[in-house]
């Protein structure tokens, strides 16, 4: 019963709330959508935290997503022992990098008086859950080895069953406690997204790659 809540009820609720609040926030309070960078106040520690954290977490999330979207290709790729080793080692390295980066960021906001002043309660909540989630991810990857393979037979089919609106939790109910915790943790982060500065990942300015350098806005059309 409790598993039903953790792996069906909670994920759907978290995603529904996240979508609703995101829309609300973008519509009614666009001013608040910001990465709230604090680099202006503290520069050095940020470099050693922000760079490994962001590049690490982007790579890790990309790997999760690819394995989820293309389980066949991913499965074929990791079927070879050498390639499996390589994927595991790269994964562990990035997980470590992500965790270390986040620890530095956490320490920075605690120790630097300037960074501390611009840290809100929500920032702390987010930091704690992110740290928990990535540390747990690293632990799971290290302790329950070959996750890049067993992910395909546990989390992936469960998540796809959720996406298809035909939830099937038999794939995940028998897993160890820490692994389950990591799964649920992912949805906690999704739930936190619209309530925190994490929304900035939704506005990553990819259009900078092709937009015109200069932006001119006319108050009225010049042509008619």
């Amino acid at each position, binding site marked *: 019963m409790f598993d039903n809540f953790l792996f069906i009820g909670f994920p759907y609720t978290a995603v529904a709330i996240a979508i609703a609040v995101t829309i609300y926030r973008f519509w009614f309070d666009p001013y608040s959508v910001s990465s709230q960078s604090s680099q202006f*106040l503290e520069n050095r520690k940020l470099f050693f935290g922000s760079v490994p954290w962001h590049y690490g977490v982007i790579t890790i999330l990309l790997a999760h997503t690819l394995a989820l979207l293309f389980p066949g290709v991913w499965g074929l790729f990791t079927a070879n022992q050498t390639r499996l080793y390589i994927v595991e080692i790269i994964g562990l390295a990035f997980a470590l990098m992500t965790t270390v980066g986040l620890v530095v960021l956490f320490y920075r906001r605690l120790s630097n008086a*300037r960074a501390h002043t611009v840290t809100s309660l929500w920032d702390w909540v987010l930091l704690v859950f992110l740290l928990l989630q990535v540390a747990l991810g690293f632990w799971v990857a290290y302790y329950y080895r070959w996750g890049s393979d067993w992910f395909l037979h546990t989390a992936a089919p469960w998540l796809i069953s959720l996406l298809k609106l035909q939830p099937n939790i038999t794939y995940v109910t028998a897993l160890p406690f820490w692994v389950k915790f990591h799964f649920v943790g992912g949805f906690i982060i999704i739930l936190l997204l619209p309530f925190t500065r994490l929304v900035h990942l939704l506005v990553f300015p990819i259009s900078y790659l092709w937009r015109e350098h200069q*932006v*001119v806005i006319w108050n*009225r059309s*010049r042509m008619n």
Partner: protein
Amino acid sequence: MDIRAHVSMVFHLDKCIGCHTCSVACKNIWTDRKGTEYMWWNNVETKPGTGYPTQWEDQEKYKGGWEREEDGKIHLRLHDRAKGLSNIFYNPALPTIDDYYEPWTYDYENLFNAPEGDDQPTARAVSMITGKPMDNIEAGPNWDDDLGGSPVYAANDVNLDKLTEEEREQLAEIERVVFFYLPRICNHCLNPGCVAACPAGAIYKRGEDGIVLISQEKCRAWRMCISGCPYKKTYFNWSSGKSEKCILCFPRLESGQPPACFHSCVGRIRYLGVLLYDADMIEKSASVSDEELVAAQREMIMDPFDPEIIAAAKKNKISDAMIAAAQNSPVYKFVKKWQIALPLHAEFRTLPMLYYVPPMLPILAKTKDGTYDIEGLNQEGLPAMLSSLEKARMPIKYMASLFSAGNVKEVEAVYRKLIAVRIFKRAQKVKDYQQAEVTEALTQGQTNPDEVEAIFRLTSLPTYEERFVVPPLGRESAVEAWENPLERKTEAGFGVRNKIAKRKF
């Protein structure tokens, strides 16, 4: 040809007395909120000096503006598009608060609440960011004010790099120390680096008048504009997480008043008016060699009396009132007609629309046997007292580094004309110069008595209406109806409509 109108500016440095009234007027209206304490959208610098933020002109460090490649193309010095996105997690060229100064106040309450003791209670300095006491205040607003000749500030001016060792030493010599003031606001450039660097596309130029603004709702604190602007005139609000900059007091302009810094200027050094320019020439003018930059920028400005230009302007929906304002523009006269106003650091290639009339240079004189001795006072040629160019204390190369991208000829031509004005008027009023001397000065300055009188008139005796020719901007009918643009001003600035909660997110 794509004719557009631009509200442009001239600062006449000869008249600046460094009183900072402009800065205070601006601060009281626009940057009196939390997170903006350290911002001076208008600031007045002492030159030679390191400025605000410290050594802002050093683009090796701050990576502002545009750079010209071998093939004559220009690119942002800060980043190309891909690098712009990959540096988004950490901007290596971002100045930090310490490059400006940490704002502070004093703990006045302690003067009243301190318990009885042996010592007089003091009001300690308290940081306005952290609220903690500050023991060492290392920088503040106008920290290097009037410190010409200082080995810490004046000597580290980036523009001195172009001078010889001898010239640099001379600048620090007692009795020869020299400095002048450089008031700076946003240049509202034609090819702005801040706009081009913004990943979110939150910064834009208003088509009708050229004012550069930052949309507070689109800004996501990617903080690239701060590096992209070579003049360091976009500022990061550390509290709201938004960049902010000079808005050229557009709410005042739209109601027919000049910006507050212009209005309050005690020395009346500021002029505001419309320029018509050809927007098709922007890229070309920003891409010529350093030597040609000033001339190329002047080339873009069009004659508002030329019927062809007027027709092209009308085709672009520029109103008759705007064209009339361009015809009366004092800026047009200084920049294009008389050619005595120059852009600041044209080599940044942003095509700034704020122009400066360079200050006259004091002559190289010393006290000798108790009298003020001017070298060559009794020599042949133009009287040394006013034709100070060759004997100037401030080397002409320094002025060229500031105002003409290093092209000495451009600055020299300006000075020859300014000297001609002085000699002509002196001969007229004091009558201690010969006609031959006056004629020679006029020839050297490539000018004539009529032009000299006009320059003199607009320099010394202009009325309020002559200094500020504010065009009717006609936006009031088209701008979306703000309920009350001042409603959220204390929390978030002018024009913000939504309630800004104390940041929870």
